[in-house]
């Protein structure tokens, strides 16, 4: 087992095996990984993180594949994290995003990694955030995170991006309604893929309307999400997307003065809250489950001996020290 310092040195030098192993350990929640991440932290902060999200089948992987080509043509190195859902029935997953990106597999300037959402307690955001740090520390100029935009977890993942691209296709009337209910707010750029299909103008005007309803928000010069059309599979519209991402980066720089994610109080607050939560879950919940108290409480509730409110109080309260004056 290499020491944290050795791992950090290898990751920073771009050693593929060490990077791959570290991401696996992050995903598996290996405790020793925290020391590595602590030591790796000073090497992070230079990558520009782009989130791509949208419903299944809108062409996210194909789009990411084209973005890689365009960024590589500008001599930028690229890391990709492709997040796919875990089957809730078996706990397994088929991670197929590489299929669309296979032409980049021999390019040393590109690192593609699949991740399954797994079932862990809201830990997806944290493990993805840590994996972004690893790709950042290995020196990638851009890190693209691709998720299926269906659940809160996935939305939270793209919140750790500098620029979030929401991908839709024509004819997704009701799905756009669904976007409105929570994903719209995180979109910095909207992209209508497969724009050669019928209904792309309608989709465009639907999106425009939704964004314009927030007109007040943009009056003081805040970023107003552009809506682009693309046919990623034919490499149409991808250049424009990259241009808008760069424009958004300039906007962020002008507002915050610094592109580092951790130089922004709002982002840090979000992240730290997540980390504190995860740490509490790890330690307190882990201990409760390991001690068998949790299963005992489940049995108690099933047998009707106790109600779930009392049971959860009994499980948690003895584990935390509450000051007298509360």
């Amino acid at each position: 087992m290499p020491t944290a310092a050795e791992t950090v040195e290898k990751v920073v030098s771009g050693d593929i095996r060490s990077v791959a192993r570290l991401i696996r350990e992050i995903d598996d929640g290996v405790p020793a990984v925290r020391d590595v991440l602590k030591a790796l932290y000073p090497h992070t902060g230079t990558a520009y993180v782009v989130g791509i999200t949208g419903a299944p089948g809108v062409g996210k992987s194909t789009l990411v594949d084209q973005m890689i080509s365009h960024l590589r043509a500008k001599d930028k190195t690229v890391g990709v994290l492709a997040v796919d859902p875990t089957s809730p029935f078996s706990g397994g997953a088929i991670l197929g995003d590489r299929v669309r990106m296979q032409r980049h597999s021999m390019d040393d300037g590109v690192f593609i990694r699949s991740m399954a959402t797994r079932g862990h307690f809201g830990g997806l955001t944290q493990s993805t955030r840590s994996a972004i740090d690893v790709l950042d520390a290995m020196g990638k100029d851009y890190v693209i995170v691709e998720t299926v935009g269906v659940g809160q977890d996935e939305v939270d993942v793209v919140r750790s991006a500098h620029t979030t691209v929401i991908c839709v296709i024509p004819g997704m009337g009701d799905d756009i309604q669904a976007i409105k209910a929570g994903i719209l707010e995180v979109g910095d750029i909207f992209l209508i893929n497969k724009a050669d299909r019928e209904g792309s103008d309608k989709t465009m005007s639907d999106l425009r309307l939704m964004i314009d309803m927030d007109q007040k928000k943009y009056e003081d010069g805040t970023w107003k999400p552009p809506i682009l059309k693309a046919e990623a599979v034919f490499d149409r519209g991808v250049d424009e997307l990259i241009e808008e991402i760069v424009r958004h980066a300039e906007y962020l720089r002008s507002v915050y003065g610094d592109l580092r994610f951790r130089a922004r109080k709002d982002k840090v607050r979000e992240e730290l809250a997540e980390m504190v939560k995860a740490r509490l879950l790890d330690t307190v919940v882990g201990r409760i489950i390991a001690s068998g108290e949790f299963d005992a409480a489940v049995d108690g509730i099933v047998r009707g001996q106790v109600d779930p409110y009392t049971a959860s109080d009994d499980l948690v309260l003895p584990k935390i020290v509450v000051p007298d004056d509360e």
Partner: protein
Amino acid sequence: MVAKPGLDGHDRGARIIARAFRDAGFEVVYSGLHQTPEEIVQGAIQEDVDLIGLSSLAGAHMYLFPAVVEGLKERNASDIMVIGGGIIPEEDIPKLKSAGIREVFTPGSPLEVIVTWVQNNVPSKGA
């Protein structure tokens, strides 16, 4: 990782295998068609997989399968185990095994047998 090396466009079998493993609780990376051995090695390393399952129905397995094993060796990744499956003549199997392919499954192998073999023979580096 389930991978299709070489010029072989038939991936029904590979997809069924991928699904069977997912249903048994594995995380399966599917590589897609027409991969060179080098691409498979590179992908397996980036994904840090425990096992590569190669599928070939086009007769080039005697070249392609050992090439993956060699590629892993060159990249210092021999801890990633390789198994194979597909249309593979009986007499080729011992040769493949001596080239480092740990097991070969031919048509008719029940999915449970393959999954159980992997569960019993592949130690997860993660656990």
